[in-house]
């Protein structure tokens, strides 16, 4: 799958601040079904190969798992690519997952996901958010993939010494905006504790 990966300056600055001054290794936070391949679809890849809902994710309207072909993504493998398909021209949609990890103090969280725009369907925007206790910690909607491609989006959150949502379970929410569809792939989240000399 060929993806247009454009790391934003914000991301580089954020990651640099998080890691340049220490050798702390980011800890990966487990996400259930992060690539949306947990639900096997027997249909042939294409625009009709879709089922509402996705294992591990609480889905909003007209949201679920799809297996798309090279018609939707020219760089897709021959047997198709699994994505979260969120929303359509009728209604906006969403996916939400509450994680096992909770907000810790003095920790930098990096949420990464690939945002896709189908070649055969309008893309009218999205919003990706890292939340805790139903409160948005950080969100972005900056990726603007052209039809048939994915763009990586990265969302950072520094909890600080006394985060208001300390101990609350982390949540990931992705919503479609407008009357188009957004596809999501490769969701990941890392946590990096700040070292003492960073504080």
């Amino acid at each position, binding site marked *: 799958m060929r993806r247009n990966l454009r790391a934003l300056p914000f991301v580089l600055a954020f990651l640099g601040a998080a890691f340049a001054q220490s050798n702390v290794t980011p800890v990966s936070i487990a996400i259930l079904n992060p690539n949306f391949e947990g639900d096997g679809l027997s249909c042939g890849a294409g625009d009709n190969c879709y089922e509402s809902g996705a294992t591990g994710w609480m889905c*909003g309207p007209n949201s679920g798992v799809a297996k798309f072909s090279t018609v939707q993504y020219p760089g897709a493998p021959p047997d198709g690519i699994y994505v979260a398909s969120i929303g359509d021209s009728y209604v906006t949609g969403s996916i939400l997952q509450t994680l096992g990890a909770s907000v810790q103090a003095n920790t930098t969280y990096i949420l990464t996901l690939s945002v896709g725009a189908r070649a055969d369907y309008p893309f009218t925007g999205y919003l990706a958010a890292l939340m805790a206790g*139903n409160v948005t910690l950080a969100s972005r909607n900056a990726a603007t993939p052209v039809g048939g491609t994915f763009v990586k989006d990265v969302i950072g959150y520094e909890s600080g010494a006394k985060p208001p949502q300390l101990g609350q379970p982390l949540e990931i929410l992705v919503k479609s905006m407008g009357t188009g569809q957004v596809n999501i792939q490769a969701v990941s989240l890392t946590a990096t504790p700040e070292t003492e000399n960073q504080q």
Partner: protein
Amino acid sequence: MSRYLLLLPIAVALVGTAFGQETATIIPIVNPGFEDDVLSCGAGFDCDASPLTGWLCGPDAGVFKPSTAQFPNGIPQGTNVAYLGRGLNTVQTGSILQQVGATVKANTTYTLKLSVGARADVGFCGVHRLLRGAPGGKCDPGLRQHPDSSAWHLPDRRNRVSVGRGASAVGAAFANSGEECWHWTG
């Protein structure tokens, strides 16, 4: 789409107040007004989709954009409501559930507020609301809730509300609005 059981909690709010405090703390709820899901269709009988952002939906529950045919005097706020259940040709109950980030604290009064609506064009068979401290947790005994068709109803209550399925209001009636409130002390 025909539904006879229509629960329309608008601006669901959950508030916790510790004894001795004058200011209540609002406990965040995802998509409390059901406006996160935007429907492009014109308001009316068929303008709905399921499920709902942020809510774990049981059978036949989702977002609905009603018109004045369903609520002649409108809805308390926004353009969307949550619908629960279905009627006419098929009877199907529905539900929505959300786990909030807060946990139960001692000596705290929790107040859950929501508006319950009965549409004018389909019968209403009652609603059952629970505030749960944990899966299988205990709730206070129930009270009956039965808004007139097309009305928004809601006196101040203490205790859980429970209405039998047989309670059904049909036909168009004048609409009023209000707010239901019930409290649970942990």
